[in-house]
């Protein structure tokens, strides 16, 4: 039973070992866990057994065998599928808002909070003098 389960798991996703060189294998695993499977949008192509994910893994393997760098491989994917294909979208004009918004919101929230707290402190001081 356990053997059967293990076999099933091994078969489900062939994102396992594709390179004998451990360094290449590590690079490969990092890349496939950074790329979104577009058919099943909340999975990486490492976790997905959709055939498109398999195609993209095979393509990444091929590009690596050709000696392309990580940046070139990400470029290859972004020019075809857009920024959305990367789980960590790169800084660009279009994705700028995505990167800046959280910091902007924290800053605005912080300023509001400080003002509210100061207002209350001033109020409580007034209360004491009454």
């Amino acid at each position: 039973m356990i053997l059967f389960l293990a076999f099933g798991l091994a078969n489900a996703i062939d994102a396992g070992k594709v390179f004998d060189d451990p360094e290449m294998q590590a690079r490969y695993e990092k890349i496939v866990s950074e790329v979104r499977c577009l058919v099943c949008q909340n999975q990486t192509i490492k976790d997905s057994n959709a055939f498109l994910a398999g195609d993209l893994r095979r393509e990444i393997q091929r590009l690596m065998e050709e000696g392309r760098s990580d940046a070139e491989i990400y470029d290859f994917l972004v020019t075809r599928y857009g920024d959305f294909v990367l789980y960590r979208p790169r800084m660009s004009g279009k994705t700028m808002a995505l990167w800046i918004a959280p910091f902007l919101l924290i800053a605005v929230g912080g300023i509001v909070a400080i003002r509210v707290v100061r207002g209350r402190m001033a109020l409580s001081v007034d209360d004491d003098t009454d």
Partner: protein
Amino acid sequence: MSRFLIPLVLVAVMIPVFVIGLNRDPSEIPSPLLMKPAPEFELPSLKDPGQNVGSANYEGRLALLNVWATWCVGCRQEHDYLLRLANETDIPLYGLNWRDRREDAVSWLQQLGDPYVASAYDEDGRVGIDWGVYGAPETFLINAEGVVLYKHISPLTEEVWQKEFQPRILAEKGIIE
């Protein structure tokens, strides 16, 4: 007064943003290929493996490329419309048969009718990747300079054709702005 005004204005701004956001289909991802040169390709013809079908077939003219497969439910849905469209329009419709079995695809065209001038057979999905295909059916409109004018994901309908394709085609032909 301004105590209430500021949150009120904020909510008034945020509601439309959320409404728009909720009504957008997250499975439709804008193609980075839009207004860029379409990838060139050459593949064996679906019906006649000895022949090649590729971007050279429609080079220098306005064309449609429809990505389809027999396992794709949406492709069956749009098939009747494609047959009608192929009859009505003078724009050549090419097929990219994507990750399919050749015999299945050929018999599907025999049974249901063949709207395509020719279909290229992309057995392993290599060309599909170049075109950023992630869900059939997808339909591309390519102009004479080989630029992708529009990409439609999901079945093509008369409504989509009138609303999205027709104006772009007319503009391309210089009939209207």
